[in-house]
């Protein structure tokens, strides 16, 4: 946003840290690293997610994201993507912290390979362990309010319900649940996964949530950089619209020009 515009909205405060952008982006699935970097810069995101994986001993150089991503330019949020148990997720989180950048973790515990939907029970269990170990846990979850409330109780710095399944691009399928979660939680709520195009991000923000996290919507667009620009604007648009308080919708039309003063 322009300076004048930043006056219109405060920062996104997560775990005591301020972020100028409410958009968080992933670094996966890009055609190449140049496009990735350009897209991330275009998105205006300050926080970017990375995954923890074994060094591929044959072709590590190309792989290591830090050969391309400057940790001074972006705040790294490591995830536990691919983990199917609480123990596994905790192990990955500890490895991520040992990398030495920060103690933040995007907690993700999957319950089913076909849908990559979260295992909320295991997520809750891992969240408690990690919060106790001093991690700043941002927990990916489904749109269940009860689970969201417990993740907050477990000490997560943010709860991140899905808009729809990872990589589906279906957008916010259940705005009621997202809205209810936002109403009830005190920690910031970030909509994570399912956004496919700009209007989806705007719709998500219009539910009152604090931010949006996306990856495939950028990486799998025909033109990731242009889509990244679009998403930057979409998140601001949805946020400001929510802050501005939209007009009431009604089935009956209401003229926008005066009805008085017509000629004979």
């Amino acid at each position, binding site marked *: 946003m322009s300076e004048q515009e930043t006056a219109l909205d405060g920062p996104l405060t997560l775990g005591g840290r301020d972020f100028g952008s409410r958009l968080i982006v992933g670094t996966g699935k890009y055609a190449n690293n140049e496009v990735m970097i350009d897209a991330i810069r275009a998105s205006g995101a300050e926080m970017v997610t990375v995954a923890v994986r074994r*060094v591929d001993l044959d072709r590590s150089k190309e792989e290591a994201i830090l050969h391309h991503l400057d940790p001074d330019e972006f705040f790294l949020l490591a995830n536990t993507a691919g983990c199917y148990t609480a123990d596994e997720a905790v192990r990955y989180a500890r*490895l*991520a912290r040992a990398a*030495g950048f920060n103690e933040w973790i995007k907690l993700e515990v999957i319950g089913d390979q076909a849908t990559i939907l979260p295992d909320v029970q295991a997520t809750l269990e891992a969240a408690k362990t990690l919060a106790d170990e001093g991690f700043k846990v941002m927990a990916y979850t489904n749109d269940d309010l009860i689970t969201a409330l417990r993740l907050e109780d477990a000490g997560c710095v943010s709860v991140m319900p899905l808009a729809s399944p990872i990589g589906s691009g279906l957008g916010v399928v259940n705005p009621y649940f997202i809205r209810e979660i936002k109403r009830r939680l005190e920690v910031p709520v970030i909509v994570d996964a399912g956004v496919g195009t700009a209007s989806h991000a705007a719709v998500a923000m219009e539910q009152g949530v604090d931010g949006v996290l996306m990856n495939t919507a950028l990486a799998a667009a025909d033109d990731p950089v242009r889509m990244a620009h679009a998403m930057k604007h979409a998140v601001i648009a949805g946020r400001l619209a929510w802050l501005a308080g939209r007009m009431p919708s009604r089935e009956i039309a209401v003229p926008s020009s005066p009805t008085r003063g017509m000629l004979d």
Partner: protein
Amino acid sequence: MSGNDAIRVRLNGADREVAPDLTVRGLLESLDLRPELVVVERNREILDRKAYAHTPVEEGDTLELVHFVGGG
């Protein structure tokens, strides 16, 4: 590499023979990896990066070398 004096370790899920009397730091160098970009888990214990230089790689060790890659 291999040799009579080589030692066997489990490295990133594969059995491998490495030179004897090697430290973790030495191992990373032999693999042409920059230590500051790699996290090492040795026999299920995460090593402090400062310990790489004086931690020996021993026969039968299970080592996991991990780093950050692109992810969502």
